């Protein structure tokens, strides 16, 4: 278990992380998600002991490690650059951490082979890192980080350099290894798909402050503020003041009227509304139902399994909707967008 309390880091006058507190339960996979410069790497490096916190404490399995140098913390870490030692073979790379952790020569031999098995690379022990592909290097880097059974595994954007297909493969693979070993893991990324698909819990960071700490579905379906709503996932945004119309709360936005979910009716407040593209249906005819907006198709992006359709509404703002693959509509068509009131996110 990892516990961060009131972690703050200043670089000179620049505040990189401000009063961040969170904890990771034993065996959980937690992701620090945020744009570049949000402080996620600083946080990760502080846990590793590579960056000294300005304030705050870091407890690892109940022990205060805040003042300890990296080599005394028993942490496993995979870096974005892989950081493999280029002058050592794969086997020597993995043995290095074991040696520094005091494993005997016999134990090292056994564990290196086990680690190579774990990452499906039993035949690559004698290769030098530069003879391996990017994905293979990342797997060796992971094997090296896990070989000595660290108290926590820190992953610093390990999938960033990989191409899309490999990246998607690696996600599942990484998850299965993490579950198999039950190692507590903190993953840092700017990629929301990484975060949503892999984590037990996601911490969204911006400008050095935690925006929301919650399971992925909660982050996506009930974002706690506008930043989270806009950073995680795509959506169409409306703004306006909440008024009561009949028995339902609505927001008037130019000529549009948007009905809100039943429970969310902060009367008289100025709110931002978000609708996810998969919650919007495209109809060819406008029907007299709640939350039906008409517009003109501006762009159709066919993504294979689905299509992303950009529709220009009558007030010249754009809305984004998902349809089934290769929809039977064309750019310039007049369409109606419909979405259930219950799917509107009110912030």
């Amino acid at each position, binding site marked *: 278990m990892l516990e961060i309390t009131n972690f703050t880091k200043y670089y000179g006058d620049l505040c990189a992380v401000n009063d961040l507190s969170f904890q990771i339960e034993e065996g959980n996979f937690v992701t620090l998600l945020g744009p570049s410069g949000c402080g996620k790497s600083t946080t990760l*490096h502080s846990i*590793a*002991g*590579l960056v000294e916190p300005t304030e705050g404490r870091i407890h690892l399995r109940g022990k205060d490690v805040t003042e300890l*140098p*990296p*080599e005394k*913390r*028993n*942490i*496993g*870490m995979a*870096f*974005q*650059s892989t*950081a*493999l*030692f*280029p*002058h050592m073979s794969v086997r020597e790379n993995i043995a*290095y*951490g074991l040696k*520094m*952790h005091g494993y005997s020569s016999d134990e090292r031999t056994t564990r290196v082979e086990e680690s190579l098995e774990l990452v499906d690379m039993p035949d690559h022990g004698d290769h030098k890192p530069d003879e391996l592909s990017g994905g293979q290097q990342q797997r060796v880097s992971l094997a*090296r*980080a896990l070989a*000595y059974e660290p108290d926590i595994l820190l992953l610093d954007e390990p999938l960033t350099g990989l191409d899309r297909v490999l990246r998607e493969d690696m996600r599942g693979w990484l998850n299965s290894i993490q579950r198999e070993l039950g190692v507590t893991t903190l993953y840092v990324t700017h990629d929301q798909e990484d975060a949503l698909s892999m984590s037990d819990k996601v911490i969204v960071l911006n400008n050095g402050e935690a925006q929301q700490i919650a399971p992925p579905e909660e982050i996506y379906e009930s974002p706690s503020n506008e930043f989270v709503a806009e950073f995680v996932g795509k959506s169409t945004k409306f703004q306006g003041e909440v008024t009561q119309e009949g028995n339902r709360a609505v927001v008037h936005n130019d000529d549009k009227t948007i009905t809100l979910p039943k429970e969310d009716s902060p009367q008289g407040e100025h709110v931002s509304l978000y609708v996810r593209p998969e919650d919007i249906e495209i109809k060819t005819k406008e029907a007299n139902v709640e939350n039906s907006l008409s517009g003109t198709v501006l762009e159709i992006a066919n993504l294979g399994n689905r299509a992303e359709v950009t529709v220009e509404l009558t007030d010249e703002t754009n809305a984004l909707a998902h349809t089934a693959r290769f929809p039977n509509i064309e750019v310039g068509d007049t369409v109606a967008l419909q979405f259930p009131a219950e799917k509107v996110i009110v912030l």
Partner: protein
Amino acid sequence: MSTKQTGIDRITHTVGERLEGRISNRHLVGIGLGFVGFFFILPILYLIPESINFNSSTPFESYRRATNSLYVEVLIRSFIYGILTTIVTLLMAYIISYFLAFSTKRVQIAITLIIVPLWIAYIIRYFGILLFLSPTGPMNTILGVDIDILFSTPAVILGLANVYLPFAVLPIYNSLNAIHPETLSASRVLGAGKWNTLRNVTFPLSLPGLVAAGLIVFILATGSFLGPAVLGGPNQSMIANLIAQAFLENFNIQFASALAVIYTILLLGFLLIFNAVFDLQEVFENI
């Protein structure tokens, strides 16, 4: 495009047009190799016949004379001084380079400070060191003790190391600077302290630069002439001083040539051994 061409522009344009298509990379390499061959290799080869007396019944008399213990001693001293200077220089250069690569943000200024001395003539730098080390010089004043090391082995080694330092700093700095910072972080997180990281990661990764620097300094130092001439006494003479003396003072071209040939062959032999231990091609590819 401007049609107005004046002076030098017109000349280069005309020359360029004439040469276009007629000159290849092979020609350019030829010019370089020709220059080196004609002004470097030939003159050195010419020393071989000059060292042999073809009109005598003992044509290798100069070589026999060179085996006299007096001259052998100087030859051995040259190589020992070369090795000592290399050790001292590499040690200082490694510390400086390490600082440059990992501990300062003012790399540009520091590198400039290291390179600027190269603009100053060797004789001036040695002369400066001479005055600095002299019994009434600032070193004794600063240190507050009387150390008289002038005209001794330490003075020569100190002077040589000082003068050749920039040649060692640059390759070592380059190879240290090429180490990805995350590689060093990884070593620490894997459980290695600062010293273990230096020993197991930083040092091995900087070895190509260190070997290249060592080679350059060793070759330069072994053939030093001005250093021992200014800072050493008669007992600090090196092979270059001996050759110069034979040639310039005693006008014994044959003997001077014989010494030069012996020295050059020994140096080449040394380089061959060096090459067998460290693959020099690999070393120079890596820096």
